[in-house]
């Protein structure tokens, strides 16, 4: 029997597979299909202080090897998430969950973190400083090391839960951002969020997405994600969650060899509702194939 367990900021996961924020809703659609307790944990759709519709539609486009989205953080607001979605999720998911939050100001980040800190179900806070689809806020906090550090400090000041900073790949030097987060007290980093892209509709001769640009994700971004996880995990001493283009158990192993302690699976859930379950089910056999007894042993093995 192989060992698929991993430990993320002091909390043990049965396996490293975590549905990525924004691609799994609040879990209920998937709980109708299979027992989602097979997941390591799950990262909920990003919450903001106020309810948001998000960007105008169309906000999804297909491309070679993946997709682009410009959803723009549609969510019912953090209070509704806590009062409505968390109780619903509790009925179908019995493990600590990861609460993904976003903000438009330092104050908002702190306010949202303080609210999630009180939610007993929440095991980790994942702080999105990397959303390319919201203007003023979101990614602008994640592209400058000092700003990223400021958000980290603001959040750390109001919570005792592990804080994982979610980083954007749309920067010249992601390592400097990760280091700034670590120095400011982050307990982990997750990367990557989507890469800025766009699509043109030949029929209309205009951008296909109403927002003009969107975030690229899916298999097309995996090499970039692997490279960034490899570089960041060498530079910091906090755990790294590897995200980007994971669709198979083989991808999970590659990401862990690159230095990830756990992984998040995003676009794959959009293409196949059973994606995470299939990855988890096939993980032991693939580990055996590559002579891996315990996942913990291979983290950063490629360094």
């Amino acid at each position, binding site marked *: 029997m192989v060992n698929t367990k991993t430990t993320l900021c002091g909390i043990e996961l049965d396996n490293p597979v975590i549905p990525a924020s*924004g*691609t*799994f*809703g609040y879990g209920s*659609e*998937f709980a*109708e*299909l299979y027992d989602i307790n097979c997941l390591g944990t799950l990262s909920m*759709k990003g919450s903001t202080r106020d309810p948001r*519709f*998000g960007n105008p*539609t*169309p*906000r*999804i*486009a*297909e*491309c070679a*090897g*993946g*997709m682009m*989205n410009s*959803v723009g953080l*549609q969510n019912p607001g953090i209070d509704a998430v806590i009062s409505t979605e968390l109780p619903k999720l509790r009925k179908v998911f019995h493990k600590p969950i990861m609460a993904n939050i976003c903000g438009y100001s330092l104050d908002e980040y702190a306010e949202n973190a303080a609210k999630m800190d009180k939610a007993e179900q929440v095991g980790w806070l994942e702080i999105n400083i990397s959303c390319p689809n919201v203007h003023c806020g979101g990614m602008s906090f994640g592209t400058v090391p000092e700003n990223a550090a400021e958000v980290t400090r603001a959040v750390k000041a109001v919570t005792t839960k592990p804080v994982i900073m979610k980083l954007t790949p749309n920067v010249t030097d992601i390592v400097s951002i990760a280091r700034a987060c670590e120095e400011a007290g982050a307990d982990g980093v997750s990367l990557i969020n989507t890469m800025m892209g766009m699509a043109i509709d030949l029929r209309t001769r205009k951008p296909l997405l109403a927002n003009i640009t969107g975030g690229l994700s*899916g*298999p097309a971004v995996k090499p970039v994600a692997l490279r960034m996880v490899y570089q960041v995990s060498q530079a910091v001493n906090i755990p790294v969650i590897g995200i980007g283009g994971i669709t198979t158990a083989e991808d999970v192993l590659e990401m862990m060899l690159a230095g990830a302690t756990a992984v998040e699976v995003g*676009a794959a*859930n*959009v*293409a*196949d*509702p*059973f994606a995470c379950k299939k990855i988890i089910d096939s993980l032991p056999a693939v580990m055996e194939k590559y002579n891996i007894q315990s996942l913990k042993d291979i983290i950063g093995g490629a360094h």
Partner: protein
Amino acid sequence: MKQGLFKILENKELAPDVHQLVLEGDTSAIRCAGQFIDIRLDGHFLRRPFSICDWTSSTLTVVYRTVGKGTAELSEYQTGKTVELLTGLGNGFDTTVSGDKPLLVAGGSGVPMMYALAKELIAEGKQVSAVLGYRTAADVFLANDIEALGVNVTITTEDGTLGIKGFVTDAMQDMDYTYFYTCGPEAMFKAVHRIAATSGQFSFEARMGCGYGACMGCTMETKNGYKRICKDGPVLVREELIW
């Protein structure tokens, strides 16, 4: 919703750029007309959504227009090939509110789902009429099949080569109906919404990511809040539309 493998029994051209695909597999997740399926195509990351045109306990039919790369490739798929589908997606039409004389109004790729809906309404003993809009006579498809179910069909063509010249709304004006169901392009929707004499249901299309409510890609604002076309729709009632 169910995920399943289906075998292609038939994939034939009905009209220029319009194909009928008949699939064999487990259809038990399909509850009613107006629901859709999401088909995985080789070499494409996202699925393609199509309304259910007809189904039995072991087969289902969709009728699709070849508009882009995916549908063009699908039209080349041969009988016997296996494809992977999500079935039973979306809310579908509510026929309990139709009254005894429902009217179906459809244009273009909105026509196929009206076959399933007509079948359901006829089985409920209702007197069903339909206005089906096409560009030109050569584009007409499924009209005979819908008529054969016992529906009183009126055809409109934009160039007047068959039926009434003009748009579906030109034919709707003097019709007598208790309720309407519609699917078609947005311009048609807005015209129908403007002139319709009764309440009704609209089946929307949207660029979708997942097709089952997880990604928030397809949301539309309504008077009853934000609705995901794939999960809370595709069918919305007239009174909730913000037009």
